């Protein structure tokens, strides 16, 4: 066993806390004694000098040859020190002769560097001092810290957990020390949230005694939980910019979700990060690649795709190649490669040529730049995770069917009573259609004359196009408006005695809108139209001078003027009629004015309706779907007046109409219909899915440097090559994507392991050791604990890239277990907590807040994998940005309570209940934590949060414990993992009391509040109590403590 593997072995044994291991390690570490390249007692080139040169000088004197001033580069030692005709930028040991020193210190505004007009900050005193020291001490050159191969530094104290040793060593230097351990319940809550995204259960808290044994057991239990795999997958999906839609143009839906499940399986199996990487880059190129390994490569197809009509697919394809490179840079290498698309890197040693050589690995994918379901190459993949979901939904459908049947029977009884009343009362007459006096106006000047029977005749000007606005006082007897009819009438005075006063006598109606204006309000409420039928429509294939798109009456329902209704080509001159049905009948209040807008904006023009008549109806269903003006109720009245019996056919039609107006029945029917539809969708998802994956073309494409990054500005040809400044491999060793993958996870690659452990640190501490997780380059932040980062990186490599091993290492440190309470002094001197003298305290990601609310309330479904689900979103959020092309229907049944990792992600409209989340357009590895009123509104009013509150309320209202204090402690244990203090109890009781008072006084309101999401109304006698407890539960879920790690 060589000493390096010995150390790795140590670290693993450390966790088992064997004294023997401690002793072994102390000796072996002593043998290792290697100084970190990033550590120096005095001035360090990579820490103190290089970042300054990079920030202030490299922009014009760096790797980018196209922007290089005076032929000088300061990023390469030979250039910086070369004789430039009697002087050099840097002369080691000699300040006077170093031109650089003169330029950064001169008062001469024309000579000073950086130049005043560059808007780069002048050097600070301490930066100058560092450069001075460095030049005087010999100007020793080195690499940027992250490009040196990490070697395992010796932990500063042999008898401490290595992580603590590094952290404490820095703290001691600053006069601080670690805080004491957090309270046991705080530790457990922190650990459970970090590893699973969910709180511990009250039982977990009760079982945890704070001992090291219990702690280690908890870590093992949590790491083995499927919840951990889901939590880790969420990290990876953000980095992978995973989405269920394309993101551009029509934002078409994709079928890549089996890859998401693949990711979860890898974390479940704790797949080595090495293999995890290789399979995602090149699973298809592995010998005898399995289906799963090919599936893995979907990672590099998760980019956005653009199928915009006018776009050159090749331009899109180049975009995708570029996206893969940039993603690889950010996610694995911590390099901001994006800028190198257009020019050599201004700061880091990566040239334009390096970039395109790297892109060559991705340039021969057998893709053609198309989008939607034409984005080959695909893997036809049948997911193993669908059948369970089908079974679950099928059983939910059964429940819904049974419920539906009961609801139908009781609605039918109500109907029979209604019918009975009608038969008994024998009404003499029934008016189906009402024709109030219209007030008509025109946007372009047409004049109108209203005749005695409310027919409107136009006269006066004949504009090419015109919008008519028809306002109708709703007649008093009408309680609701279910639809309206427009009769288009011929007239002898019209052209050819037909329908218009202009053109060829034929009319064209392009759009119809309906609104209601309430008395006293200046605004008009738009009403949604569900359907329209006409007595006759023009033949779309007719021979016409007009655009044939003008034919069908259904086209008047959209806002598109390029289509619409006409009866052109129908020879016979007779009145025509169109009947519109409202999506929901309008409930009339006195003084309501019904407004109908007839838009006539056809391409051909001169087709405005000459004569028309409008009527309103109140009956639902059939009545506003037929053109003859009759209705089932009218038929019933006639039948009764004729002394006939109601036959079965008429009874059926009457029942159908009645059910449409029965709210209780409709609610149940709607749920059943959604469930049936979602079951059908699921069955469809069980078929092979077309998952976008990688596959090489037979003949590789030539790769060019793209001048200024423009897709068709092809420069010189380049060959596949890895980044030489990161880890130089000969061309012969790096010829395929598989080679690229192996290069990335090569143990000599200085970046990958550091970047990976930094991500894990970020998961456990909210921030990485490098706080710019996507930039380990010169412009990124330096690590707060460089030697710890290196130690962990080496540990990762030597543990065969075992991610759980690193997570376990972190979790077993005192640094992780310490309290987050900070003294004012510590807060003032280290507000960003870079030293880690306290545990961090940070708000949970929005997805975790949602998942955890479902979890603590007992609603959460623990099903793993399967097709995307749709958590609640406010109505219309998809429709409004796509002008109605996409409609969002929340999942029903248990599917509603799945974890957010399974939620459908539409790129053009990210889930509204998430805030500060990655946007999944390009890869994201950082974290955002803002604090805005919109977040507050979301957590107060999102249906998921309310439903969780209701479920929590039910849990205590239904519990045996009737004592208020006990109930409050029960809720607190679930939501906060701790008991409340007397003071807190008093505060909550005050809210409970005022809520109880309010709801006792208005039980109906209580029922309304409690009936949320899929929750059924509470029994009336329990309603006020449930509503009051729901208020308290919602309050608890909105506590800072509940949405924060502790």
């Amino acid at each position: 066993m060589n000493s390096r593997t010995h150390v790795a072995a140590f670290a693993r044994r450390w966790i088992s806390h064997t004294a023997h291991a401690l002793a072994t390690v102390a000796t072996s570490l002593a043998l290792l004694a290697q100084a970190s390249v990033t550590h120096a007692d005095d001035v360090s080139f990579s820490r103190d000098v290089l970042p300054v040169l990079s920030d202030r000088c490299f922009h014009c004197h760096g790797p980018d040859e196209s922007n290089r001033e005076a032929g000088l580069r300061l990023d390469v030692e030979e250039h910086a020190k070369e004789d430039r005709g009697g002087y050099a930028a840097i002369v080691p040991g000699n300040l006077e002769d170093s031109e650089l020193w003169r330029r950064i210190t001169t008062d001469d505004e024309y000579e000073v560097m950086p130049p005043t007009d560059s808007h780069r900050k002048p050097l600070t005193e301490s930066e100058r001092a560092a450069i001075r020291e460095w030049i005087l001490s010999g100007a020793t050159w080195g690499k940027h810290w992250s490009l040196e191969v990490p070697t395992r530094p010796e932990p500063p104290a042999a008898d401490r957990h290595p992580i603590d040793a590094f952290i404490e060593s820095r703290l001691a230097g600053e006069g601080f020390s670690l805080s004491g351990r957090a309270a046991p319940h705080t530790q457990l809550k922190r650990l459970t949230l970090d590893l699973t995204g969910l709180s511990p259960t009250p039982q977990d808290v009760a079982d945890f005694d704070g001992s090291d044994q219990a702690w280690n057991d908890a870590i093992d239990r949590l790491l083995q939980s499927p919840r951990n795999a889901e939590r880790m997958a969420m990290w990876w999906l953000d980095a992978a910019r995973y989405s269920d839609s394309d993101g551009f143009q029509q934002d078409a839906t994709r079928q890549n979700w089996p890859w998401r499940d693949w990711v979860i399986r890898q974390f479940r199996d704790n797949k080595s990060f090495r293999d995890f990487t290789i399979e995602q880059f090149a699973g298809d190129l592995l010998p005898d690649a399995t289906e799963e390994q090919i599936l893995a490569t979907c990672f590099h197809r998760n980019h956005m795709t653009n199928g915009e009509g006018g776009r050159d697919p090749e331009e899109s394809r180049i975009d995708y190649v570029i996206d893969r490179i940039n993603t690889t840079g950010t996610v694995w290498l911590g390099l901001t490669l994006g800028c190198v698309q257009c020019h050599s890197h201004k700061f880091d040693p990566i040239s334009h040529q390096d970039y395109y050589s790297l892109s060559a690995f991705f340039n021969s994918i057998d893709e053609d730049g198309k989008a939607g379901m034409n984005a080959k190459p695909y893997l036809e993949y049948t997911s193993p995770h669908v059948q369970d979901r089908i079974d679950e939904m099928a059983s939910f459908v059964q429940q819904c069917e049974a419920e539906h049947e009961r609801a139908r029977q009781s609605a039918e009884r109500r109907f029979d009573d209604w019918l009975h009343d009608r038969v008994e009362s024998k009404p003499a007459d029934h008016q189906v259609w009402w024709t109030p006096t219209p007030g008509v106006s025109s946007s372009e000047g047409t004049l109108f004359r209203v005749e005695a029977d409310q027919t409107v005749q136009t006269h006066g000007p004949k504009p090419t196009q015109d919008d008519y606005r028809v306002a109708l006082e709703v007649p008093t007897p009408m309680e609701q408006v279910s639809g309206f009819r427009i009769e288009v009438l011929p007239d002898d005075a019209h052209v050819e005695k037909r329908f218009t006063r202009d053109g060829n006598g034929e009319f064209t109606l392009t759009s119809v809108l309906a609104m209601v204006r309430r008395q006293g309000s200046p605004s008009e409420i738009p009403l949604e139209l569900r359907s329209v039928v006409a007595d006759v429509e023009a033949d779309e294939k007719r021979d016409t001078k007009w655009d044939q798109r003008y034919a069908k009456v259904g086209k008047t329902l959209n806002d598109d003027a390029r289509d619409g209704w006409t009866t052109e080509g129908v020879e016979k001159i007779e009145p025509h009629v169109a009947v519109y049905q409202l999506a929901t009948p309008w409930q009339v209040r006195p003084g309501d004015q019904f407004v109908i807008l007839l838009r006539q904006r056809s391409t051909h023009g001169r087709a405005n309706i000459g004569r028309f008549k409008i009527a309103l109806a109140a009956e639902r269903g059939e009545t506003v779907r037929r053109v003859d003006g009759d209705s089932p109720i009218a038929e019933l009245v006639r039948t009764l007046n004729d002394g006939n019996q109601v036959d079965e056919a008429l009874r059926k039609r009457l029942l159908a109409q009645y059910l449409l107006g029965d709210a209780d029945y409709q609610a149940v029917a709607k749920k059943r219909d959604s469930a049936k539809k979602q079951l059908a969708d699921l069955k469809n998802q069980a078929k092979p899915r077309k998952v976008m994956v990688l596959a090489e073309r037979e003949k590789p494409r030539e790769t060019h440097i793209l001048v200024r990054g423009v897709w068709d500005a092809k420069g010189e040809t380049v060959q596949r090559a890895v980044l030489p400044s990161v880890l130089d491999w000969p061309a012969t060793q790096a010829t395929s994507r598989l080679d690229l993958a192996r290069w990335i996870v090569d143990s000599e690659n200085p970046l990958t392991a550091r970047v990976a452990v930094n991500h894990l640190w970020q998961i456990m501490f909210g921030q990485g050791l490098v706080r710019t997780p996507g930039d380990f380059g010169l412009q990124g932040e330096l690590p707060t604990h460089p030697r710890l980062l290196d130690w962990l990186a080496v540990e990762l490599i030597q543990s065969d890239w075992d991610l759980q091993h690193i997570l376990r290492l972190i979790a077993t440190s005192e640094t992780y277990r310490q309290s987050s309470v900070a003294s004012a002094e510590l807060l003032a001197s280290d507000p960003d907590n870079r030293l880690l003298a306290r545990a961090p305290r940070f708000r949970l990601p929005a997805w975790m807040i949602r998942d955890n609310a479902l979890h603590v309330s007992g609603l959460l479904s623990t099903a793993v994998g399967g097709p995307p689900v749709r958590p609640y979103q406010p109505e219309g959020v998809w429709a409004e940005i796509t002008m109605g092309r996409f409609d969002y229907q929340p999942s029903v049944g248990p599917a509603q309570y799945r974890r957010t990792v399974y939620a459908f992600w539409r790129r053009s409209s990210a889930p509204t209940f998430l805030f500060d989340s990655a946007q999944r357009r390009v890869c994201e590895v950082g974290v955002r934590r803002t604090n805005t009123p919109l977040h507050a509104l979301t957590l107060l009013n999102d249906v998921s949060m309310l439903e969780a509150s209701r479920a929590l309320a039910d849990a205590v209202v239904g519990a045996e414990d009737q004592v208020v204090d006990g109930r409050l402690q029960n809720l607190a244990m679930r939501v906060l993992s701790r008991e409340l203090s007397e003071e807190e109890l008093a505060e909550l009781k005050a809210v409970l009391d005022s809520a109880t008072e309010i709801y006792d006084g208005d039980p109906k309101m209580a029922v309304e509040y409690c009936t949320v999401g899929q929750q059924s109304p509470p029994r009336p006698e329990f309603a006020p109590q449930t509503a009051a407890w729901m208020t308290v539960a919602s309050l608890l879920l909105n506590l800072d403590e509940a949405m924060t790690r502790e």
Partner: protein
Amino acid sequence: MSEIDSKLGRRAFLNQAGLNFGALAAAAMLGDELAASQVERGLPHFAPKAERVIFLTQSGGPSQIELFDYKPDLHKLAGTELPDSVRQGQRLTGMTKNQKQLILPPITRFDAHGQCGALIGEWLPHLGSIADDVCFVKSMVTDQINHAPAMTKFLTGHQLPGRPSFGCWASYGLGSMNKNLPDYVVLLSRMKRGSDQPLYDHYWGSGFLPSKHQGVKLRSAKDPVLYLNDPDGFPRELRRDMLDSLASLNRHHHAQTLDPEIETRIDQYEMAFRMQSSIPELTDLSDESESTFQMYGPDSRRPGSYAANCILARRLAERGVRFIQLFHPDWDHHSRLRSWCVSRCIDTDQPSAALVADLKRRGMLDDTLVIWGGEFGRGVAGQGKWDSPLAGRDHHPRCFTVWMAGAGIKPGFSYGATDDFSYNVVENPVHVRDLHATALHLLGIDHDRFTHRHQGLDFKLTGVEESHVVDGILA
């Protein structure tokens, strides 16, 4: 002059005090978060002309040939092929690259309007009524030929999603003037037509800036802002009680942890509560006079219409919102200009003109910058058979027109010129990034010095390529 002085006065005091804690403390002492956030970034760089921006975004690419850029001589060339000397290898979209580029002359009549005699296409009669207040920039240029990248560029300065949009930069730099409303509000026209160009939320996204700067969409729905309304059956007084207890419990926890983030959270919950009244007050138009609705046109009575959103824009401006952005979709007229383009003109013409006139009569046009425009223009060649009524026009990036009005913009003026084909700019080109630089300038910001560090780079709205304030359109 004195007005500018007084505007600069207090800020200059803060600026001159230097970007040090003294100034920050002074600002804080004034109880003025706005000043504090500006001082932190050293903003404004100079006295602003505009306090706010109203950006009337016309998504899809309105046709400058039918509406603004009068080229009568094209009638003589109707149906002839566009000379290569004009096209100069300009890329075409996939929709027309395989058809001959035959010239379709403007199908509108142009009339002279106002004292300035601006020539405007007949489909925009109301715009004529404010011609003397408007500056037409006829020499706009972009480098993107497809919608999403071009709109992303138009709004964020870069063609790929991920950068903050203009409004976010304004919010980030200048902060809020109203504690009860967001700094950046977005209004989408409600339309029933499955559009091929969704209005992606990155158009108003904050990119790498803190997400509190992102545009907040004001919807014409039950919840004007997502999650604004308390649930049914939850009375306002109970919400108040609940928030009081919430704050008290949070303070209790703060005393134990000293985490300053908790105090912020308490404040944010309080602002959420205030928004629950300030937003409905804002969106309820019942206090608007009848003449307002007549001025903005009949559509203005219909919530969600562009016209109603124009009234809301004025109300937002009155309430101190920094950046107000309307989106009207469906200007992508590949065919049937006579019905398609006309319809979008009807939707937008009267309300856009009314908004400018309304701001003017209320004395707000002096410090409000209004911008009207889309992501690119349309080509001179007909798409489809040029002489058919079904003809339309394809995308065209090399020239398009936007108009601006208000704060510091030269009124009754036309800037820049295109060639005889409305194809290439021949005088005073204004790139999209120059438009950004100019608008920032009017807000008192030097675009070159207004940066945000992200991933080690100093990003700015105008990007890496050179951009200029267009002095020629400044009053």
